[in-house]
C-alpha cells in the first residue's frame, strides 16, 4: 500500500437489488458516509442513501421567473422607451407581442439553469481528478455493475473490517481507492469561476458599449444608406450642362394647389381680408405654424427676444409692439408671403391657410402681451 491517503473502500455488486439489500445492513455497522455508483439511475436508491430533495426545481423556478421578467422588461424598455416606434399601429407597450420572446427567454434561462446548474453547481462536474476515476471499479460501474463506496473523507477507516462487511453482504469484489494528487487547473471551482467571470464580463460589456455609444457618438452610424451612388440635393453634377444637380421647374408651371399672389406692395395688401374664422382648430394650426417657422427668430412670445438675437446680433421685429399690432391682417399676411428686410419669404414653407392661421395666432400673442385684468378667468 502506498503512502497516499485512502479515499474509500468500494464493493462491487452484481445487481441493483443486491446493492439495495446491502445498504441498510452496512449502514448499521459502519459509521462512515456511503456513496453508491450505478450505471443508470436506480429507483429508490436516493431515498435509501438519504439524499435530500434535489434543489434543481427551485433553482429553475427562480431563474425562469428572472428570465421572464428580464425579457419582458428588456422588450418594454427597448420598444417603448429607448427606441419608441409605432409599428403596425400597435401601442408602444404592447405586451401581447412581447409574450413569445418572453416565453423563449424563460425557457432558455430555465433549461440552462437546470442543465448547467445540475452539472456545475450540484454535481461539481467537470471533475477529472476524482479518485473513482482512477479506480478499476469505475469501468465496471459504467458498464453493468453497482458499487458501494464507504468513504473516509479525511477520517481514518478500518479497511479490513469494511472489506469483510462488504463481502459478507454480497460484494463480489472489493477495491481500496486512494486519494489522488491535489487537483490542478481543471478543478470544478476553476470552471465555475471562469464561467461566472465570462458572464459578468458579457453583461458589463453590454452596458459599457451601450453608454459609450450613446455618450460618444464617434462611429459613423450605418453608412450603407449614405454611401450610395446617388445625387444629393444642392450637389454638383457633370451630367447636366449647367453643372448643377438640381433642375429648375419648367417655366410657366405652377405647383399644384398654389394660388398666384400678385400684390407687390405691403401698402396694397392692407385690403386683404382674413378668410378664416377664429376657431380653436385654426388657432391651433396657427400656433403650430408659428412655433415651427417663426418662433426661432421672433420668439415663442413674439417679442423678438431669442438666443439668436444675442448670437448673431440680428434684430427681428417685436411682433407684439403697438406699431405691428396696429397693422391690418393683410399687411401681416404680405410679410409672410413676401418677406421684409432680413426676413425671407415663407411662401414655400406655409400654405395659404397656414399663413392666415398664423396671422390669427399673432393676434393672440399681441393680446396676451397686453392682457387686461378682465382677461384672467375667474
Amino acid at each position, binding site marked *: 500500500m502506498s503512502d497516499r491517503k485512502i479515499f474509500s473502500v468500494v464493493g462491487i455488486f452484481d445487481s*441493483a*437489488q443486491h446493492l*439495495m439489500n446491502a445498504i441498510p445492513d452496512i449502514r448499521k455497522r459502519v459509521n462512515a458516509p456511503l*456513496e453508491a*455508483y*450505478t*450505471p*443508470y*439511475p*436506480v429507483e*429508490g436508491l*436516493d431515498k435509501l442513501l438519504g*439524499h435530500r430533495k*434535489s434543489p*434543481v*426545481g427551485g433553482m429553475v423556478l427562480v431563474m425562469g421567473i428572472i428570465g421572464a421578467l428580464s425579457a419582458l422588461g*428588456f422588450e418594454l424598455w*427597448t*420598444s417603448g422607451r*429607448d*427606441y419608441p416606434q409605432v*409599428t*403596425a399601429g*400597435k401601442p408602444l407597450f404592447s405586451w401581447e*407581442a*412581447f409574450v*413569445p*420572446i418572453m*416565453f*423563449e*427567454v424563460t*425557457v*432558455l434561462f430555465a*433549461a*440552462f439553469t*437546470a*442543465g448547467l*446548474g*445540475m*452539472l456545475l453547481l450540484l*454535481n461539481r*462536474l*467537470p*471533475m*477529472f481528478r*476524482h479518485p*473513482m*476515476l482512477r479506480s478499476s471499479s*469505475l*469501468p465496471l*460501474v*459504467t*458498464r*453493468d455493475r453497482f458499487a458501494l463506496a464507504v468513504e473516509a473523507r479525511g477520517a481514518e477507516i478500518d479497511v479490513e473490517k469494511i472489506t469483510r462487511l462488504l463481502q459478507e453482504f454480497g460484494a463480489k469484489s472489493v477495491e481500496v481507492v486512494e486519494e489522488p494528487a491535489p487537483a490542478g487547473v481543471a478543478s470544478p471551482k476553476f470552471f465555475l469561476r471562469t464561467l461566472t467571470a465570462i458572464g459578468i464580463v458579457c453583461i458589463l460589456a*453590454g452596458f459599457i458599449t*451601450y453608454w459609450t*455609444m*450613446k455618450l460618444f457618438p464617434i462611429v459613423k*452610424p*450605418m453608412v450603407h444608406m449614405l454611401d450610395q451612388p446617388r445625387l444629393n440635393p444642392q450637389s454638383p453634377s457633370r451630367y447636366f450642362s449647367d453643372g448643377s444637380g438640381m433642375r429648375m421647374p419648367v417655366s410657366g408651371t405652377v405647383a399644384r394647389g398654389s394660388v398666384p399672389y400678385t400684390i407687390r406692395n405691403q401698402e396694397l395688401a392692407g385690403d386683404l381680408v382674413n378668410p378664416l374664422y377664429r376657431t380653436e382648430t385654426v388657432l391651433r394650426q396657427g400656433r403650430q405654424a408659428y412655433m415651427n417657422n417663426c418662433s426661432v427668430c421672433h420668439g415663442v412670445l413674439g417679442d423678438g427676444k431669442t438666443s439668436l438675437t444675442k448670437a448673431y446680433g440680428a434684430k427681428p421685429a417685436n411682433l407684439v409692439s403697438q406699431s405691428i399690432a396696429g397693422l391690418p391682417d393683410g399687411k401681416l399676411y404680405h410679410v409672410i408671403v413676401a418677406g421684409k428686410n432680413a426676413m425671407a419669404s415663407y411662401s414655400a414653407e406655409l400654405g395659404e391657410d397656414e399663413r392666415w392661421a398664423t396671422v390669427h395666432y399673432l393676434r393672440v400673442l399681441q393680446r396676451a402681451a397686453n392682457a387686461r385684468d378682465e382677461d384672467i378667468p375667474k
Partner: protein
Amino acid sequence: MKSGSTLTTAESTLQLLKPPSVVTGHLTIGGLDDQVLTPVGTKPPLAWFVAFSVTLSATLIGIALIAYTIATGIGVWGNNVPVAWAFDIINFVFWVGIGHAGTLISAILLLFRARWRNAISRFSEAMTIFAVICATLFPLIHVGRPWLAFWLAPYPNQRAIWPNFRSPLLWDVFAVNTYFLVSLLFWYIGLIPDLASLRDRTTNRVKKAVYTVLALGWRGASLHWHHYERAYLIIAGLATGLVLSVHSVVSFDFAVSLVPGWHMTIFPPYFVTGAIFAGFAMVVMAMVVVRKTMRLENLITDYHLEVMNKVILTCSCLMGYAYLLEGFTAWYSMNPYIHHTFMQYITGSYWWAGWLTITCNVLIPQLLWLRPIRRSYSGMILVAVAVTVGMWFERFVIIVSSLHQDFLPSSWQIYKPTFVDYGILLGSFGLFFTLVLLFARVLPVIATSEMKMVLPGSQPAHKGGRHE
C-alpha cells in the same frame, strides 16, 4: 376467439392488452453496451461509404449553389414580387418541423413515461439538432446579405436602434435559437453517461482523451444521478413547452399577417401537429434503415415501429381536421378573399399541390388503420415517404398558392423555382443525412443508460409499501 377454452381465451386477451417488452430476446445490461457501443468509432462498412459519398455530393452541390446565391444575389432564385417567400421559407418551415418529432419523443414521451421512447430518443434528438441546423440555413441565406445577420440580435449599437420586438420574424430568431440551444443541451446531458461508458471501454488513447473530456468526469454516483434525473425531467418539461412554442412562432410569421390563407387562428396548433407528423415520418424512415443496417432489431422492435405509426396516424387525423376546418372557415367566414384563396388551393394554378398535400397527408396515412400495414416495412416506408412529400407540399401550398394571387390582380404572378432553388433544397437533404451518417458512426445511436434503466430486471422489485 371461439376456439379454445375460456381460460386460454382470457389469457390470450390479456396478452394482447399488455404492451410487449421493450426489447426482444434476452439482453443483459452489459450485453447492451457491447451491442450498442462496440461499433462506435470503428471503420464503417462499404455501404456507409457509398451512402456518405452520395449525401456529401448533395451537400457540396448545395454549398456551391449557396455560394453562387450569395455572390450573385437572391435574384438567382425564382422568387418574384407577390411570391416573395418561396423555397427558402418552405424549406425553413419544413426542416424546423422535422426537428419537432425528436423533441416530442425525447421530452414529451419521457414525461408520459412511455418506456419505448428510450430506444429511439437519442437518434431522434440528434435528428432534431441536424434538422434545426438545416432550418437555420435558410433564413440566413434568404436575408441576402448573411454577413449582416447579426443585426437581428439586440446588441447595443451606434445606430441607437433596437430590433423590432413586435415582429414575428424576430420572435422566430429567438424561438429557433432557443430551440437549438436547449435541444443541444438536452442531447448532451443525455450523452454524458454514455460518453463515460465509452471512456471506460476504449483502449485507444486519443479516443479515450476525447471521451474523457466530453464525459466531464462522470462517475455515476447516486447523488449525481439524483440531481441528474430531476434536471433531465425538468428540461424535458421545458422542451415540451418549446415544441409547442417554436412551431407556433413559425406559424405566427404567417398568421399575424392579413394575407388570406395565412391569417388563421388555427395555425399554431395546426403547425405544431404538422411538424410532429413530418418529423415522425422522418424518424420512422431513419429507424427502419438504422435497425436493419446496424442490427438493432432487438432494441428497436416491431412494437416501436407500430407505436410510431400510430402516432403518425393520429397526427394524420388531426391534419385532416385542420384541413376540414380551413375549408369550412373559408366558406363560413363569408369572406370572399379567404374563399378565393382556399379555392386557389384546390382548383387554382397549383391545384395539384393542394391535392397532393391532401392525398399524402390525410388519405395515404389512413392505411395505417390496418395492423399489417403498420407492421410491414413497405407499408410504413410508403406512408413515411408520402408524409414527407405531403408536408413539404403543404408548406408550398400555404406559401406559394396564397401569395401568387394577392389583393392586387395586376400583380398576380406564377412562381417557378430555378435550378438553384432545387439545388439548395437537395443540399439541405444532403447536409441532414451527412450529419446523420456521421453521428451514427461516432456516437452511440441508442441511449444506453436510459435503455439499461428499463431492461427487464434492472430495477429493484417494489416493496409494495405505500409511498408517503
